[in-house]
């Protein structure tokens, strides 16, 4: 299983993206981070910490569970429903720039669901997308604004982003599965 990013590289990548966010938005006024569960949430928290290091400003952070917005929920006639966890956005998103944070961008369907859910919470000024890995194979017209690493893959491979908070270690691994991987 080739390791395509180690802990050090992931840390430097997040620092770089934090600077990009500050530069692009000319500061952090009315900006908030929303992580897509599961691994988008700790990445968003780390980004918020980096942004505070750079600017001294605290950035509000929320968590989004997109399960109830998935477009494949009812296309699976047999089998368990995905587990639902809570969405937690403890601030108004109205007129804010929201940076949506996820670990891997693949078909774009997760991001589509996240956009639908976010918009049900209010009317943000803008939504930007940050991902740790963009592995390609988009099925929807969705493009990330901030990318940790572009990683060309085949559909028969899977990309796993591991984080200390959840997995006990930081790395990005690519592995062959032999079958098409769902998002």
């Amino acid at each position, binding site marked *: 299983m080739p390791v395509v990013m180690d802990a050090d590289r992931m840390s430097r990548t997040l620092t770089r993206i934090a600077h990009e966010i500050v530069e692009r938005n000319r500061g952090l006024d009315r900006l908030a981070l929303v992580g897509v569960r599961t691994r988008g949430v700790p990445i968003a928290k780390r980004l918020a910490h980096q942004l505070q290091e750079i600017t001294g400003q605290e950035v509000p952070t929320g968590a989004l*569970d997109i*399960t*109830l*917005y998935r477009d494949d*929920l*009812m296309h*699976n*006639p*047999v*089998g*368990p*429903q*995905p*587990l*639902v*966890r*809570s*969405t*937690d956005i403890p601030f108004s998103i109205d007129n804010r720039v929201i940076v949506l944070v996820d670990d891997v961008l693949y078909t774009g369907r997760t991001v589509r669901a996240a956009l*639908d*859910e976010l918009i*049900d*919470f*209010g009317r943000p000024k803008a939504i930007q997308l940050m991902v740790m890995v963009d592995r390609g194979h988009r099925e929807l017209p969705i493009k990330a604004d901030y990318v940790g690493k572009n990683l060309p893959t085949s559909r028969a491979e899977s990309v796993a982003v591991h984080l200390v908070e959840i997995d006990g270690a930081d790395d990005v691994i690519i592995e062959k599965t032999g079958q098409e991987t769902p998002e």
Partner: protein
Amino acid sequence: MNAETTNNVAASAEAADVPSIPVNRLRTKDLLGIAELSAAEISLVLDTAVAMKEVSSRPIKKVPALRGKTVVNLFFEPSTRTRTSFEIAEKRLSADTLNIAASTSSVVKGETLADTVHNIEAMSPDLLVVRHSSSGACHFLARICRSGVINAGDGMHEHPTQALLDAFTIRERKGRLAGLKVAICGDLLHSRVLRSNVLLLVKMGAEVWLCGPPTLVPTGFGRTGVHITSSVDEAVEGADAIMMLRIQLERMLGGYFPSLREYFNVFGMTRERMSRAKPDVLIMHPGPMNRGVEIASDVADGPYSVILDQVANGVAVRMAILYLLAGGAEHEAAA
């Protein structure tokens, strides 16, 4: 309660288990009772309901999870809370809903329950939510239906979603169910809510005390591991939660106790009786309440009352059930 139901209650409670290995689905297409659920499945429903409750606090209280699914609410008995709660839950998940009451159905023309449901099934619903005055009606329908059947109360048998929302309310306030003392007082004989609650609380490791007039205590509960007493003071002593059950005058043919006033004097929940419980006791009631019969107004409306929380939590729990069943979970081979 007939002997078979008593045996089922006892057998289910004897098979009590504590949540060990988490599950991510319900084993069958139906929710017929708490008796059929494992502790892990109960935990799954309660955990899913936590997320569903958050949906009800949003500016737009609607998610597209059940878009394209059709849910038929078949209520052959009067209901305000349960029917409304199910309907709101269905709409919050974007399901298409249809309400059929007995008085407006062809049942009044002599059509059998099976024929009524077969005709509804011909229109391809995904789930049927059924309330019926006959115990076992939902089990009968589950056997003859392709659609999932959710028991919204069948006679004197079970009312599983009420027990689940009660458990959710206790767990939300106390953080757990295991080890808590729960006193259930009132008309035990006619209560389907009681049967579901006893099964659930015993499965989840709570200590259950039942209290009511001896004429309103069904036989068979002794084997479930619950404590039975006719002393309210003994039942509520050190209780973490007190559930008052409605005196079901519509199911009584008389003679169970001398008068409603005497019932209240001996078994009604008053502030004085409540003081024997824990300082942070929860006062619960499945509704509708008979004020001044099973519960005093100042208790029902007091600071310890979570009666309206139960109603709010009912929507979240029913959303969780609908979501978990609408995915079409596989039947176990044994089913």
